[in-house]
């Protein structure tokens, strides 16, 4: 297992480099000038020319790329054009907020999704099953921004029991976590349902029932553990995805996380910040995948990595 993990980590080095290169090329191909954008309506040709030279933006692209790689290898991702702070500190400051949101969102989706999937499978083709599947379809289909505004309207404006926007305490987390969790709860519940139905057809389930076990015990102890394999994979990837920033949720609820930073960086052609954010999320997704694979083998002893 140790060898496997090391091998995977080594393979991730060229992947990371490749992504750095692709991001850099994309940023240089799309039109846009960060200095013109910083000055917007107060544009002055002389100032743009001078500041571009001062920021070394006029150097050839390959020199800028290798300068970025060289500095990144030394742990220096540069300074954000727009926010004037070091990219590393910006990402490190935003990451805890994204982490808290991601974990809460994921927890909500698991707490709703898994039991809902189990109930649906146990009561398949019943009214309850249809209602739960309908509800999860709604969660998957409703755009997050719309669900966000709807929740804000009901809980903040109408009932006045939750804060509208910001990130000043646990109560600020309730709406974004539910909105975020609801959308992925749909996926989790549908996956749990289909996987559980598949497992419930196996002989060992019939055996478990024949032994006189309670249905709940059969489902939870015997079926669910095996049915969870594909669900765990999705869960691990889901967390990795959420960690790269739930852009829309962060915008609607005013949460200062990675997603908002990345989107602002794209809008502002803030190359150092965007490069840093992409590198950061790349590493998270690679690690998320690795964790999913490792969990897989822990849950299913038949799967071995050499």
């Amino acid at each position: 297992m140790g060898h496997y993990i090391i091998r995977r980590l080594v393979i991730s080095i060229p992947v990371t480099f490749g992504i750095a290169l692709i991001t850099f090329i994309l940023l240089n191909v799309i039109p846009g000038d960060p200095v013109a954008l910083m000055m917007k309506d107060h544009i002055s040709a002389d100032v743009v020319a001078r500041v571009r030279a001062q920021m070394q933006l006029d150097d050839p692209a390959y020199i800028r790329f290798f300068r970025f790689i060289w500095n990144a290898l030394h742990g220096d991702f540069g300074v954000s054009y727009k926010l004037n702070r070091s990219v590393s500190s910006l990402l490190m400051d935003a990451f805890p907020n994204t982490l808290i949101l991601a974990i809460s969102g994921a927890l909500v989706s698991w707490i709703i999704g898994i039991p809902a999937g189990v109930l649906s499978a146990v009561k398949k083709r019943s009214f309850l099953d249809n209602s739960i599947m309908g509800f999860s379809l709604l969660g998957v289909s409703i755009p997050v921004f719309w669900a966000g505004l709807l929740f804000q309207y009901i809980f903040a404006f109408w009932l006045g029991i939750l804060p509208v926007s910001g990130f000043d305490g646990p109560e600020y987390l309730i709406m974004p976590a539910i909105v975020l969790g609801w959308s992925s709860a749909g996926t989790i519940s549908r996956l749990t349902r289909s996987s559980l139905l598949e497992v419930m057809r196996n002989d060992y389930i019939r055996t478990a029932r024949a032994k006189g076990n309670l249905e709940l015990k059969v489902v939870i102890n015997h079926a669910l553990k095996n049915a969870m394999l594909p669900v765990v994979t999705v869960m691990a990837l889901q967390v990795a995805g959420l960690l790269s920033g739930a852009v829309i949720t962060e915008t609607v609820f005013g949460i200062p996380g990675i997603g908002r930073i990345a989107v602002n960086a794209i809008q502002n052609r803030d190359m150092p910040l965007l490069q840093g954010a992409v590198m950061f999320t790349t590493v998270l997704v690679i690690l998320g995948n690795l964790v999913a694979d490792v969990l897989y083998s822990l849950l299913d002893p038949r799967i071995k990595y050499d």
Partner: protein
Amino acid sequence: MNKNRKSIFSFVLIPIILATTVLSGCGNSASSDKMITTSEISDPGTTDVQKTTSEYTIPLNIYDRLVEAITVSPGKSELVPGLAESWEVSPDGLKYTFHIRKDVKFHNGEILKADDVLYTFDRMLDPATKALNTDFLDMIAGAKDRMDGKANSVSGIKVIDDNTIEITLAKAFAPFLANLATPAGSIYNRKATTEAGEQFGIDPQKTIGTGPFKMKSWALNDTVVLVSNPDYFQGAPKIDGVNIKIVPDAETNRIMFETGKLDIFNLSNSASQIPQFRDNEKWKNSIVSGPIVGLYYYALNEDIKPLDDVRIRKALQMSIDRQTLLDKLYYGEGQLVHGISPPGLLGYNPELPKIEYNPEKAKQLLTEAGYPNGFDMEIVQTTDSPNTLKINEAVQAMLQKVGVRVKITQIDESTYFATRQVGKLPSNQNEWSADYNDPDNFFYTFFSQKNSKVRSYNYNNLEVNAKLEKARTMVDQTERIKLYQEMEKTIAQEDAAWIPLFALNQLFVVQPRVKNFQVAWNGWSSMSYYGLEIVEAK
């Protein structure tokens, strides 16, 4: 089975309900005591005015300037002494001698001296600063050499004594005083700013000014907290401070205001909501409006055929029913502008002939110009600008009536500004409000040869350009204004270089507990909160 279902339900739902109930009790953290809460759409990134050309809310509250532009009545401004208690200008308009107040303390306790002014202006022009706002000071003698790295100081700035500083200009520049009253003229403390290095304008504890508020904390993309400065030289503010929330979503902003989480809501950002507030019993008396020294306009790119033909540009001016746009889209909150200067700007000419709405005459002009069946025209705007799209679509329909087929293209902001600065951006709707109250801020900004190119007008009237350069240096204000009024007719009406639309009123809705709120003369939502009061704690 029934029992099992119950247990699963209790496992899932009870914690959620409990968490919601317990935590919701803490949800009402509205603006407390004597703190004002406002919002901005994006994080300013820095409060160092030398490194930004917009987002001036914090700078206007934590720094002061030698001269200040204050709002004396709606839409009217006046230059008054700020950190300089008085000044003299030499008859040739070249030398400015400022007498600095003796009783001004920076937030770190240091006393303001002339040397701080020298340091601040030199820092702006020092190439190491990578400043974006150098345009406001580049008329000082020796500024160019300093910016080009050919000199280690600015020859035109001299400290006479601790309270006197002399600034000499390379050539006379009539709006110099007004220039110094812009946020770019904010004065820093040499010691604090040098010690802070790159952290100046970023680290609240290291960002030192003389202003009525001090920076207390800054949670990026979340909240900036300013607290009142009890030692402020004009007396401590009557409020304890200001919470500036960063709220990117317009709808979220509105809900926050209506639920009492914000004290001030800028209604002008969402014109469609004007009737909603104006017709609402609860809010209609809380709307504060004021004319602004600024205007909406259409920029026309003369490099794109057939806009190089003045008859075509005049036809476009006459094809747009501006009064209808103003009434239908902005609920009549403003007034038409027929030239370049909006009402309230120094030298505004109310006698300027009106640009009439006359589609018939427009058709004649198009025929004369060789386009009896009209032509295809592109109007560009940034994506995510629903208000601009509305006005563009209305204009598209109006121009259709004279045969001009408009295609509206939406591009992202970065591409928009990058295309514009190389002179290739097609016609577009935009707005401008004054940085300083002087015609130069409108005429030179748009129609001087070099600015006309980077703003994609490509208006090339060399005679006008020479007059614009001359007007900047004129000392006789009466003659100068006369020249601007003459140029206004040439540029906007004879040459039809742009399509002026209207000067809109700026509307804010303010919670009843906030008193003394007034719209800044230039209509900026970035404003000083110094004069505000709170009459009742929530």
